[in-house]
């Protein structure tokens, strides 16, 4: 029982960070119906910038905010220069561009900061909120989950209560009609990309701040697959779906895989891919997503 509870806490810890990255995926998918394979790498770059700023003596949370702004601006620039000229309904070139970005960002981060893992400063108070017998709920878990929920609330408010949020929702629902009603499509999509990258950077910073993890250029490879699965599971165009998806994937990873005897422990990534397969076959729109209808 103790072990089970501990595993559930682990699931929440991992799930919240996947959810933050999944939110970034969801924002971009909502805006452009594109899955950004470079999202994880953009977030990793942002986290490295945060680390660098902290090294230069900027207080931790200040560094995080500056890092988020940096990667937001970078993402807006990338959207303008690389993504916008392509037809959003033709997926292959866009997938190829994001894969190219994946390689380039990964290589640049490795050239600047090298491959060796570095420890990331702690964003949250260390230690445990409570510990009974062997069950420990660390502050990290509580804060990671809380910040995930806060981010979702902020985004929700931003999208429903502000003018640019309204424009964003209009564009994601129908590009042609929103262009006719005078919305600047380009700027709105750029805003979506910037928002996504900022959320991703926050996610990667929190992910790297996990006391058991270190920051390195390849840290997002696994997290990318897991968070993309989370996003697909929750519904690729649903913000709160990302949280549900993230927690489910965390749960599958640390509870289901541990307790079903014939699944070896190393299979956690494979388990995520199998979940992805099942979701895509039986409910491609995910748990909370809107169903796609194709008109002929």
């Amino acid at each position, binding site marked *: 029982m103790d072990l089970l509870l501990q595993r559930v806490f682990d699931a929440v810890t991992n799930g919240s960070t996947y959810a933050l990255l999944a939110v970034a995926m969801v924002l971009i998918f909502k805006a452009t119906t594109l899955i950004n394979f470079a999202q994880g790498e953009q977030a990793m770059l942002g986290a490295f910038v945060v680390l660098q700023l902290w090294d230069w003596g900027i207080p931790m949370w200040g560094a995080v905010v500056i890092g988020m702004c940096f990667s937001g601006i970078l993402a807006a620039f990338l959207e303008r220069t690389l993504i916008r000229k392509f037809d959003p309904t033709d997926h292959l070139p866009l*997938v190829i561009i994001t894969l*190219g970005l994946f390689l380039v960002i990964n290589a640049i981060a490795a*050239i600047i900061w090298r491959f060796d893992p570095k420890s990331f400063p702690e964003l949250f108070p260390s230690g445990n909120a409570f510990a009974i017998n062997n069950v420990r709920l660390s502050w990290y878990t509580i804060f990671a989950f809380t910040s995930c929920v806060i981010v979702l609330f902020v985004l929700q408010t931003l999208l429903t209560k502000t003018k640019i949020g309204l424009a964003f929702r209009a564009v994601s629902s129908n590009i042609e009609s929103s262009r006719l009603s005078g919305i600047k499509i380009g700027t709105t999509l750029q805003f979506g990309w910037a928002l996504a990258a900022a959320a991703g950077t926050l996610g990667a910073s929190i992910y790297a701040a996990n006391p058991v993890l270190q920051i390195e250029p390849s840290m997002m490879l696994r997290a990318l697959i897991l968070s993309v699965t989370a996003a697909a599971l929750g519904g690729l165009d649903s913000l709160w779906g990302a949280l549900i998806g993230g927690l489910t994937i965390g749960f599958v990873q640390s509870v289901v895989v541990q307790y079903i005897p014939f699944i070896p422990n190393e299979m956690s990534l494979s388990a995520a891919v199998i979940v992805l397969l099942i979701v895509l076959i039986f409910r491609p729109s995910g748990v909370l997503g809107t169903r796609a209808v194709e008109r002929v």
Partner: protein
Amino acid sequence: MAAKIHIQEGTATYRKYRIAMWTCFIISLLLVAFAYVDVGTISIGSNKYNLSLIRLDKAIAFTIAILGLQVVVGYTGQIALGQSFFFGTGAYLSAWLVADHSWPFLMTLLIVIPSCFLIGMVLGLPALRIRGLYLALLTFGLAAVFPSLVKLDKLYTYTGGAGGKLTSNYKFVAPSWLPFDEVAQGLQKIPFLGGYFGDGPLSDREESRMWKFILFSIIAAICFWLVSNLIQSRPGRAMRAIRDNETSAATSGINLAATKTLSFGVASALGGVGGVVYVAEIGIASPDDFSSLLAIYLIVGLVVGGVGTLSGALIGGLVYALIPDWASSTQSISFLPQRWLQGPTGSLILGLLLIILTLFLPGGVVTGWRRVKKRFFQIDSATS
């Protein structure tokens, strides 16, 4: 405008032109093989670039795998990124048969091709429901999973775990009737250029390397021939119809499910063959060679050569086999700081290539080359 040479398709001149092109290609291939059979290098400035047959054999392996991607991505238009999965499957199956059951390498193709074909077809089944980006996602996940599958403890006896599976018990021995020595010595007698071809007869290792290169080239040639026949035949036309518009293909009576599954099967079988060639060359199948990065690099090869062009696969294979290696052996360029040359420069270049080509030359190198060629040769189709 320079004088243009017009050649009519189907005439004797056209046939001569084709034969001349192919002879040039094969002769230059053999010349390269003889010139670089020992560890051959090209020097530019103070940097030495490796162009040994080992590199070229790897390029052949990647070429075959990229050829598979051409079938499924280039001609059928399904965004499948998981070629490294089948590359790895082929490599491991072959390594297991060679190391544990002492099969000869080429015999393993008899097992690898049908099993990769079947696995590809089965894994392609979800693709009948999953389209576009979702398929890209799923196949990318598949590629990411492969190393952890191979490292499973339960499979340790078959795959050798994280350490990899050695196949060094099998050696390629060149048959004695092949006149390697005579050709090599003949080439060395050519005035001025003879020095490039080494000196004296070939050693046993060189002969075995040469034999491997020729064998792999023949395998690749057979793959190219089969795929080009497939593309020009009825199923190939069906594939292209699906790529151009799925709905209209279905309304003209094309069996979407069968055609897609076939193209997945063919692509995976080619991936498996590539894997066999790869492991036959390097002698070990190790899990991290077949990670999701390989899947992305194979896509780079596909795009650089040109999506939907068969000869693009060859260029793609060469690019992936040579550029990262050359980038890491570049020790000094005067205008670049040292820091940018150490580390993953190769992957940076490949990523930039991917972006730049997609932006400015979407058809890849082959399309660019065709445009240049059109200035000088005009091949008129038979009907005109």
